[in-house]
């Protein structure tokens, strides 16, 4: 404890970057920090890896026999399930965004970031960036476990990759909703609940696990228009890769695209605005 030079005024010279590059740099550092959290938070590892594997196995072998009978001939339950469970798992996974952000606020680390001369949006961007990587990892795990139970990219690797991209894009849009929840609740426990409960009806009243026509008529109205259904259907189309008319591709992908854009366009500015006030 004698080296006073360490405490004295700046000896190294460095400059903060400007403009968009600064936002990119700061977001990258924050994303790195959030990704370090993953392996050090057992709860997140379970959410990220164990839960999707468990769901695939349970649904395939417990419900698969019954639900498979409702599917068109020639479609295996695994082929039907994996794209659906991919949306469901990624959407569930977004609740960790709310929990993580609420936790950061509670612990004062956000105050640390806000007392630094960094771009204002970096903390949120960095979290979203890290979550995007996390969701991509989850999607990849699902494909791998899917291959074990009989799922295949029937339309080839290109469409398969596109499937993952669409799923992650939708999950990322949902993360922006979760940042709003994370910043509006008082602690991480509340964020866990508030970020999670509404995901059950959202993902289950959809075509994720079972064809929509098997539901009561009144429920079908919600299920058919549920963005989760629209995404699940598009992912199925991409995984099967049947040659569909262009108009069908358009009618399937345009609503998904619009949902992703709309959710992000509303939730992201709200979140950034909220961040400035916390």
């Amino acid at each position, binding site marked *: 404890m004698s080296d006073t030079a*360490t*405490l004295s005024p700046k000896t*190294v010279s460095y*400059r903060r*970057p400007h403009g968009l590059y600064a936002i990119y740099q700061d977001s990258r*550092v924050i994303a790195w920090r959030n990704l370090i*959290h993953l392996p050090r938070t057992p709860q997140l590892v379970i959410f990220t890896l164990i839960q999707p594997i468990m769901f695939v196995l349970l649904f395939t072998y417990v419900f698969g026999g019954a639900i498979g009978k409702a599917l068109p001939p020639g479609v295996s339950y695994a082929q039907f399930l994996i794209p659906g469970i991919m949306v469901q798992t990624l959407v569930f996974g977004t609740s960790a965004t709310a929990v993580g952000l609420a936790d950061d606020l509670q*612990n004062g680390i956000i*105050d*640390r970031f806000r007392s630094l001369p960094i771009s204002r949006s970096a903390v949120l961007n960095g979290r979203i960036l890290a979550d995007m990587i996390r969701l991509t990892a989850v999607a990849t795990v699902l494909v791998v476990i899917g291959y074990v139970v009989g799922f295949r990219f029937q339309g080839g690797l290109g469409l398969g990759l596109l499937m993952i991209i669409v799923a992650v894009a939708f999950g990322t849009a949902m993360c922006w909703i979760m940042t709003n929840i994370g910043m509006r609740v008082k602690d991480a426990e509340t964020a866990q609940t508030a970020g999670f409960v509404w995901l059950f009806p959202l993902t289950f009243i959809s075509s994720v696990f079972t064809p929509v026509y098997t539901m009561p008529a009144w429920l079908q109205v919600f299920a058919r228009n549920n963005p989760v259904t629209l995404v699940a259907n598009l992912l199925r189309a991409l995984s099967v890769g049947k040659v569909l008319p262009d108009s069908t591709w358009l009618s399937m992908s345009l609503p998904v695209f619009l949902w992703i854009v709309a959710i992000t366009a509303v939730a992201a500015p709200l979140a950034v605005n909220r961040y400035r006030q916390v």
Partner: protein
Amino acid sequence: MLMPPIIEVENLHKSFGDTHALAGVSFQVEEGSVLGLLGPNGAGKTTAVRVLATLLAPDQGVARVGGLDVKTQANAVRSIIGLTGQYAAVDEKLTGSENLRMVGRLLGMNSDQARSRAAALLERFDLTPAADRQVATYSGGMRRRVDLAVSLVGSPQVLFLDEPTTGLDPASRSELWAITRELVADGTTVLLTTQYLDEADELADRIVVIDHGEVIEEGTADELKDRTGGRSLEIEFANAAELGAAAVVLEGFAPPGGLHRNEQHQLLSLSVDSDTALAVRAIAALTDAGVSPADFRLHRPSLDDVFMALTGHGTEPVDQVNPDSIPAEPTTGNTSEAVNS
């Protein structure tokens, strides 16, 4: 020309609902000095620091750090300040080294610069052996050190220490005091909030006493002690007879109620406030009357006495207050009769 103060706070107001955390606070801090913001819990100290550290926008009033407005030039302010304390924190899931490197990178260092800055600070704060352990495994003292280290990564001109030693053991506490003194010796300006009176007395050049969101007194520790008055001449005698004789002589000098007899210690205590000439005359009068004191001294009230006098709580007799016996939170009393001066 005098340098303008490096921290200027003018008429700062901040309310949370019905609570007026800051109700018109003004003070200044000279560059290179230590200002102690002293007050009980809930006095508004932390709110003031949060405004100055750009974490909170004031409802009214102006705050400038290094001549920069905290509201309109927040990012420029952020590049010259460091913040440590009960609310700014480190990331528990990260190691000490990762925390420091992260902040270095965010300040614009490249990874080599961030790495060597982190290593130097870890070394300086005796944290090198714990550098690659998650902060969650650190002791309270180590956490506070890494927190302070993180706030020093950018070599800030102005450092805010928000209750830096609250909850620390005496050894960690004096270590933090030593580091603070070194920082000041190197030219860093420090704004320290504390509810420990001895901490303000120990570190601060000037003290601003704050209660209920208002500044109730300001000055150096000595000035505060003087200004609250209460300086007294204490005269000790060899025996009870001399004490009695002296009491008769001194009755003429004392303001009403200003003379106290302590038979047990054979001590007379004469209130002289800031009138030192009165003390000289009293001693002379005793000598003229043929009473010779065994010993005499001018007693200044401790900062604790001052604080209690100002905030209106704490009714213990002055001579029984020992600085070490002050509870950690001198705030539990009724503060509604705070003296505004």
